[in-house]
């Protein structure tokens, strides 16, 4: 802290008031209990997001967002650019790991009831960030302009077109026309590198501010008065670092042993390849839509499916107000049961999609 009290520190303090942050860091502590492990997934998601930002910026140096050049530019990145293969593979693998970490973070917050008063808005901002991650995944999947991505986007945007009232508008808005074309690619590129990052940055700032303001929650099963605490820096951050280094090692291993495939260039006139599947985090919804009958009591089955998932998404956002704010620790309530059922549903439907 000598530096903080130095002449330079005083100079900076006078102009920015930065010692407030320093004080905050010095005094910030977090609870320590048997569920602490799950709290590292928030930091892990944030770290993987940072990896996405860094590798994404590097990919932008060579990527060209047009139907004529996108595939070739990614091919160039993977074959000609020094370590381009590593950056592209890490970006793709990290995207998947980030969404997986976000899901784990969300479910752990649900089971540990971290959304209780006064952290409702932390939950809301977090759940919206999860949806943004999915939107990142959906828009980024098309960018290499390969066959599988082309047809998966076609199917995905077709589904959006079924939404009542705004469906046709939504479809044209997403595609930039009636069909998936170069206009869709340019549009998705815009979403992926400008709109979504801007919204995510704003929402992430709010989320992190709220986490900072309220501190980490303590699960109802743990007495907050009796739970020991540890300093955020260095104790918690060092543990975070262990996880992040392990994540880097995992990403490097995946990129070197299982480089992310590029596939064949998209051809709008070619027949759709057999067994098109979206990314794994959309598969359970895709599979559900396959099982819903075409018509249920004169209502379009696909429409019902979309409404079901829309309502589920809405319920996820307003979860803090669905569950009683205070509940004795020994009474678990219905929320964990619903959480487990949702996990089982996602796992079973995804397994069915990959096994059939």
């Amino acid at each position, binding site marked *: 802290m000598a530096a903080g009290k130095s002449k330079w520190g005083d100079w900076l303090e006078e102009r920015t008031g930065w010692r407030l942050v320093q004080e905050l860091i010095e005094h910030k502590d977090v609870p320590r209990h048997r569920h602490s492990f799950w709290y590292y997934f928030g930091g892990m998601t944030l770290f993987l997001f940072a990896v996405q930002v860094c590798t994404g910026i590097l990919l932008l140096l060579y990527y060209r967002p047009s139907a004529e050049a996108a595939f070739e530019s990614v091919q160039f990145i993977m*074959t000609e650019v020094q370590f381009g*293969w590593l950056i592209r593979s890490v970006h793709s693998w990290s995207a998947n790991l980030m969404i997986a970490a976000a899901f784990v973070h969300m479910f752990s917050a649900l089971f540990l009831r971290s959304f209780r008063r006064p952290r409702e808005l932390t939950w809301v901002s977090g759940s919206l960030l999860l949806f943004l991650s999915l939107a990142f995944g959906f828009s980024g999947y098309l960018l290499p302009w390969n066959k599988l991505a082309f047809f998966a986007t076609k199917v995905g945007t077709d589904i959006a077109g079924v939404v009542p009232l705004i469906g046709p508008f939504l479809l044209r808005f997403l595609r930039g026309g009636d069909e998936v074309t170069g206009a869709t690619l340019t549009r998705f590129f815009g979403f992926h590198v400008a709109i979504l990052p801007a919204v995510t940055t704003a929402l992430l700032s709010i989320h992190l501010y709220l986490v900072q303001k309220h501190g980490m929650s303590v699960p109802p099963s743990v007495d907050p008065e009796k739970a020991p605490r540890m300093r955020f820096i*260095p104790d918690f951050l*060092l543990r975070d670092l262990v996880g992040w*280094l392990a994540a880097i090692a995992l990403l*490097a291993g995946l990129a070197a042993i299982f480089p992310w495939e*590029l596939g064949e260039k998209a051809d709008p006139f070619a027949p759709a390849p057999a067994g098109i599947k979206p990314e794994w985090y959309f598969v359970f919804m895709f599979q559900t839509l396959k099982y819903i009958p075409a018509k249920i009591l004169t209502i379009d089955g696909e429409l019902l499916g979309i409404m079901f998932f829309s309502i589920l998404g809405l319920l996820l956002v307003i979860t803090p107000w669905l569950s009683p704010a205070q509940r004795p620790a020994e009474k678990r309530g219905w929320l964990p049961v619903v959480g487990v059922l949702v996990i089982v549903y996602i796992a079973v439907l995804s397994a069915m999609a990959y096994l059939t």
Partner: protein
Amino acid sequence: MWQQLLLLMVLNPAQAQAAPRPVESTCVRCHQDLDGSLLEPVKLRTQDIHFQKGLSCHNCHGGDPAIGIETGGPEDSMNPRKGFTGRPSRRQIAALCAICHSQIETMRKFNPQARVDQYAEYLTSVHGKKNQAGDPNVATCSDCHGAHGVRAVKDANSPVYAPNVAATCGRCHADAKLMSSYRIPTNQAEQYGKSVHGEALMKNRDLAAPTCNSCHGNHGAAPPGVDSVANVCGQCHAMQWDMFGKSAHKKAFEEQKLPACATCHQNHLIERTSDAMIGNEEPALCPACHEQGSAGYLAARLMKSRIAGLEARLAAAGQILQRAARAGMEVSNPIYKLSEGRDRLIHARVEVHMFNPAAMQKTLSEGESIAADSEQSGQKALADLAYRRAGLAVSAVILLCMIGLLLLKIRRLRA
């Protein structure tokens, strides 16, 4: 021609098109109660292209189908004075068909693109000449197309639909008894069925593949002479035909009166070509004419070895690229490039028809260069893969060390 004129006197095709088919035909009413060949025209009429276009019995046989049984007997509707000609003789059939099929004014009413030269061609064919000379065994229109129940050529059930043609010709040409007086072989249909063309057309239903009439003509059917064999094959195999025409073989074959393509490839039993056909070792064909040590013998050996060498190099490059691709390396560009090398190999095989190793040099060199580049790309991809794995191992060790140090630090902080 006089037969056609005679028939024209009693059968007016223009009138036949104009006159609507009677709703109730006496021909049908009587013949549907008869048996055997007299019932057949009634049974087959609905599938007949002529019937479908509005024609009926009297348009070919004359007579008046409108005279009903109530208003007169069969003898009235089949009265020669009403133009009834009855069953045409085998010599008359082609002329009868030609009344309509050689008249563009008539045919364009049904199909503006219809040919009208079949009868003229038929008269120049072996079948037509013998038919006109009174030979009752040679084919005429109805033998191939059917007399009643004539289907359109594009109809898959028609005997003249391309995949059915060999069987239709074979009905006579595979009949040893029938062919004995003509002293021609009877194994053509069988051989064609085993050939690369027969397999493509009849087994794989590839309608681009040739059948009997593609080489012999259909209405003007005649065996191609020795001089014109290359012209026949060259209709489809244009490059080979062109190269053969410029080769030394053309003159040599002409001098020895050998048919151009068929000398090496046969005529009906044309097998799938392979590199084994050239060179000096069994089953190569070259030693049949070229003595050991001769210039032709040495040229054949050189062509064979160069082609085999290019094929081996392309295969080796392909294997290396596949290994890299299986390991997840992005090698789609070199794989595509390799396909261009395979194109060169195919082109070199075509260039064999120049029978000159020097003429193949450019194509072979291009192919070898592509094979070398592809192999190099594959080796580079495999080297990159090894580099990545080594890099991964090094970075994993570094990361594990860092994790270990962090854990130590955490432990010390706890203490």
